[in-house]
């Protein structure tokens, strides 16, 4: 029987320029180098059983990326984490390796929300007061907008997809907790564009520095509305 492991990792420095497919290839090689006993599919060109919670856009930093893998045998959380960190390139750190309980849904299927810290590149701070503007922006009962999807545009109430929006702990930053479900995923840049549009400001294409902080699912037994994907598994 195979074991399900959840790996949390960060992405920073030059690695933010590595796209999702290349990051998958990077991890496939890293897992071989770290000699993790990953499960393979059958057939002439077997591939590793591996899935990611959600792709991260090119240029976006993260402290909370998740990848689930299937393993044939176990050592320990600490051993696996150290072995992987020993073969990482600068710009990706393995933060935790946890064993998922039997029957746990994989991260891709269970993700419902993601949190972000948004800061501004030098000289790209918006001309308006962040706290005041957000308050005004979030005041109406609905925030209707046209969202572009693969099938054309559709009208959505953005407010339904914003679970939390406030100024961040770092000065001049924003904290966003947004819908990350497969049907309702919202990017922080979209929220910022809407805030700007509300404030009558035209943002630049590269104004934002976005860092994904964590990804969340729901747990009916937990008191919080959202629980971190990291808290589903446990050390082994």
């Amino acid at each position: 029987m195979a074991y399900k492991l959840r790996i949390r990792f960060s992405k920073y420095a030059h690695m933010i320029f590595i796209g999702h497919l290349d990051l998958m290839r990077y991890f496939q090689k890293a897992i071989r180098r770290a000699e993790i006993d990953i499960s393979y599919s059958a057939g002439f060109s077997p591939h590793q059983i591996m899935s990611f919670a959600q792709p991260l856009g090119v240029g976006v930093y993260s402290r909370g990326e998740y990848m689930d893998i299937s393993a044939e045998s176990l050592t320990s959380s600490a051993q696996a984490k150290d072995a992987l960190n020993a073969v990482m390139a600068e710009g990706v750190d393995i933060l935790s390796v946890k064993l998922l309980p039997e029957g746990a849904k994989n991260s891709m299927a269970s993700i419902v929300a993601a949190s972000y810290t948004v800061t501004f590149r030098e000289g790209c701070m918006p001309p308006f007061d962040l706290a005041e503007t957000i308050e005004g922006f979030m005041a109406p009962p609905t925030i209707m907008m046209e969202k572009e999807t693969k099938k054309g545009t559709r009208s959505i109430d953005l407010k339904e997809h914003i679970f939390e929006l406030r100024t961040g702990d770092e000065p001049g930053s924003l904290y966003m907790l947004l819908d990350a479900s497969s049907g309702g995923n919202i990017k922080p840049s979209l929220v910022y564009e809407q805030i700007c549009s509300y404030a009558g400001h035209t943002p630049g294409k590269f104004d934002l520095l976005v860092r994904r902080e964590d990804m969340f699912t729901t747990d009916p037994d937990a008191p919080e509305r959202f629980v971190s994907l990291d808290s589903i598994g446990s050390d082994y």
Partner: protein
Amino acid sequence: MRKLALSDEILLTVDKPARYIGGEIGSIMKDKNKINIRFAMCFPDVYEIGMSHLGIQILYEMLNRMEDVWCERLYSPWTDLDAIMRKKNIPLFALESQDNVRDFDFIGFTLQYEMCYTNILQVLDLAGIPFLAKDRGPEAPIIIGGGPCSYNPEPIADFFDLFYIGEGETRYEELMDLYRKHRGLNPDNPGKDPAEDRSGFDKMAFLREAACLPGFYCPAFYEVSYHEDGRIASFAPTQEGIPAAIQKELVTDLDNAPYPTAPVIPFIRVTQDRMTLEIMRGCIRGCRFCQAGQLYKPLREKSVERLKEYAIKLMKHTGHEEISLSSLSSSDYSKLPELLDFLMEECSKKHVNIALPSLRIDAFSLDVMNKVQDVKKSSLTFAPEAGSQRMRDVINKGLTVEDILGGAREAFLGGWNKVKLYFMLGLPGETEEDIRGIAELANEIAKLYYDTVPKEQRKGKIQITVSTSFFVPKPFTPFQWAPMDPPESFLDKARICMDAVKSQLNQKSIKYNWHEADTSMMEGVFARGDRRLSAVILKAYQKGCFYDAWSEYYHHDVWLECFREEGIDPDFYTIRRREDDEILPWDFISCGVTKSFLLREWHKAQEGMVSPNCRAGCQGCGAASYQVGVCPKRS
């Protein structure tokens, strides 16, 4: 944390930013304060091509083993970034340090194909380095070229300070020693900033001594005079003590030569995205069109023990999902069955695929292919190179119709039904009959399939792909004297071949592709060109030509215009037949095989006579002077 040379805005604007950020697993970082010599090793093409090249990885490994030398990688920025760098005046940088390469001590260019020449100028231009060696003072990096095209370096002689003739593993240590001496650098007490003032550096004195090291050629110390008809009248050193001839350098102990078992692993998918295990160097086959076959003589095998060790290390250090054997003719490796057995066992444990190089199709290779590939998806590859036996004898391709049909029959019985066939058009003395032979051979293979495999066992139709390229005569081959076909005749020949394919009974099973003729012509000009072409190349670059190896960026009309403006007739280098006694631009290089041997082979070709391979009977080519490998030992 490394600071990148390009801003986030630029990196998020260009295609594949990972081409420019470095930081890959296996890339080597060094402390600048402990370095004497900064070396940028450049493959003048896009990252994905350059990163696929084993030679650069070998030299990268070798140079970085020298403690006070830091060798970094450098590739041509793709056209999108090129435009941004020009517009914003961003200087070209090496991948590891992200520092401007103009401040480096050396830039080495590997010259793998002629059509990359304008990209050398692109790299110099973006770095802010003068194009011509004579315009570069002591402050500029030493520009050095190596690789197959350096066996006729003359068309790009004006751009280079030095060329390295031969296999790179042997003489760089001496060159670095010489450079340290002339710059007053102490290897035991490094840390002199190479970017600092080099005005005290007597570059010419350094080059003069370098030109006397084995394997190095400094074009500035040689003078060429020409006959009125354009042929070379003389080629000689201009100074006392500069050698009149340069002897090719060759690794005599491959087992103990530097080899990268922890190579750089690209983040993005590159052309050769796998582990490469070089099993031997050189080739016993004497195909008369093949330059590599002559340049790397004699054949030297690595021991199977060493190869097993390398394979294990490569798998451990890279994590690649595929391994490939590299050599000119892997079927000739004497311990191939032992090596493949070992690899099949180790690779299946580690879920690593084995990519088979073009092995000779026989019972052994089919058995191996059957074990490591999905027969349904894989295809058989034959490279008969010529369609008729007569023509195959002329080119000394030791492959008969019986070999091909015998291999194909076994393969069809084993379940294969895809065949790829590679040929050349425009071989010396080619007739229409030889061309039609290509189509006839393809038809025969198709017929064999239907005769061999009973209807109920067939998994679909046979699929035969015939590809032809245009023959380009290369220096140091018996065909270096041969006239090359003009582009018009190439296209006529492709049409004849196409018509012949169409007239075959099994034409529906045969797909025919041919190569473009214009680039082949230009490749032919530069392959056998002389020094006068430097001016044309510079002019073409200044008119916007680069990435000529990419057909979408190749502008034949601009090139022709540059030839006209420089008063140089490109046909002089291609369609003209050279007499046996003509002084060829590359005659000052001795590549191991003698000119008299090549001439003998040229004459035998014209008589349609074949020569046996090195193992079957030594032909006295001259490579035995290296006293290594397959050559008979002197008593």
